[in-house]
C-alpha cells in the first residue's frame, strides 16, 4: 500500500514538472527572441551615437590638421600638437568594441581633448552651440 501511494506521489510530481517544463521551454525560446531584439535595439542606438560622436571629432581633427599642416608659427604648432594628440587618442580607442572596459573613461578623455582643441582654435561660439544641439544630440550626452 505504501509503495503504491509513493508511486502516485511521484506521478503527480513528475506531471507537475513536466507541465512546468513545457511552459518553460516555450517561454525560454520566446524570451530569448525578445531579449535579442530589445538588446540589439539598445545596443545599436548606443553604438551609433558613440561612433557618431567619435567619428565627428576625428573628421574635425584631420581637417584642421590638413589646414594647419604647412604653418610653422608657434600658435599653429601648438594647435597641431593638440590635434595630433586628439587623433592619436581616437585611433587607440576601440570605441566599436562593446566589451571595452575603459569605454567611458577614454570617451571622457577624447571629449576633453576635443574641448581643448576647440579652445586653441578659437572656435566661434555659435559653432559650439550648433555642435551641441545638432543632429542626434551632438556631443553633450
Amino acid at each position, binding site marked *: 500500500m505504501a509503495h*503504491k*501511494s509513493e508511486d502516485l*506521489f511521484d506521478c*503527480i510530481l513528475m*506531471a*507537475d514538472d513536466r*507541465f*512546468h517544463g513545457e*511552459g*518553460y*521551454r*516555450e*517561454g*525560454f525560446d*520566446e*524570451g*530569448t*527572441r*525578445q*531579449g*535579442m531584439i*530589445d*538588446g*540589439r*535595439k539598445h*545596443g*545599436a*542606438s*548606443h*553604438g*551609433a*551615437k*558613440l*561612433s*557618431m*560622436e*567619435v*567619428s*565627428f571629432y*576625428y*573628421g*574635425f581633427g*584631420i*581637417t*584642421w590638421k*590638413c*589646414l594647419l*599642416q604647412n604653418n610653422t608659427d608657434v600658435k599653429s604648432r601648438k594647435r597641431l600638437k593638440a590635434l595630433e594628440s586628439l587623433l592619436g587618442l*581616437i*585611433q587607440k580607442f*576601440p570605441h*566599436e*568594441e*562593446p566589451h571595452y572596459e575603459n569605454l567611458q573613461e577614454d570617451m571622457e578623455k577624447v571629449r576633453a581633448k576635443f574641448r581643448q582643441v576647440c579652445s586653441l*582654435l578659437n*572656435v*566661434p561660439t555659435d*559653432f559650439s552651440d*550648433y555642435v551641441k544641439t545638432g*543632429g542626434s544630440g551632438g556631443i553633450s550626452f
Partner: protein
Amino acid sequence: MMSWVKSVQYSGEDVFDEDADDINLQDKEWKYNMKKRVRDGYVDGIDHGKEASLQLGFNMGYREGAASTIAIGRLKGIISAIQCWCQLQRPDTPTSVTDLLQQVVKHEDSLMEAMRTALENPIPSVSDVSENMEDLGVGEVESGCCGGGGCSKGSDCCRKDSDMDLGPILPQKPSLSFALPTDPFTITGESLEQLLQCCMDIVSELGLPQELIWHLQKLKSATE
C-alpha cells in the same frame, strides 16, 4: 491533491454512480492547476531567456550601430571644421558649406530613424533586412567602412598605416544596411555618396588642401 489521489485509487461502479460529480470537480481542479503550472513555467522561461540574450543582443547591435555611423560622423566633422575655418578666415561663409552641413545632419537623422525601424520588427537574419528593403524598391546605402562588404572591395580603408585610419580593424561581420529613401521629393533624400561629392566640390572651390580630397575620396570608396 490528496483527494485526487484518493479518487484514482477507487475502481469499479461505485465511482461512476456516487462520486461522479466529485471526480468532475477534482478533474477540473487538476486541469486548472496544471495549466497554471504551464503558465508559471512560461513566465519563468521568458525571464531566463531574456536574461541570457539581452547582453548578446546588445553587443551585436552595438557593433552594427557603431559601424553604420562612422562615415557620416566623419563627414560631419570635416564639413564642420571647414565651416569653422571659413568663419575665422573669411569675411563670409559660403552658403554651400552651411547647406551641406544641414543636409549632413538630416542624413544622420534619417539613418538613425531607419536603424530604429529596421530593428523594431523582429527580423531573424541580417540579410533579410537588405532583401526586404530591396523588395520595397528602396536603394541601399552602406555607410561606414566595410559596411557589409568587407575590405575585399579593394579599398585599403582598414590599413593601419594610412593617415585615414578608420580606427581598429572592423570585425568581418555583416552590418545592417539601413536603407535610406532616395526619392528626390523627400527632404532626407541625399545619399552619403552625394554628400561626400558635394564636400569634395566645396574643398576644390575654396582651394583647401588636396589632402582633404583624398580623405573624402577614401570615405566615398568605402560606401561604394
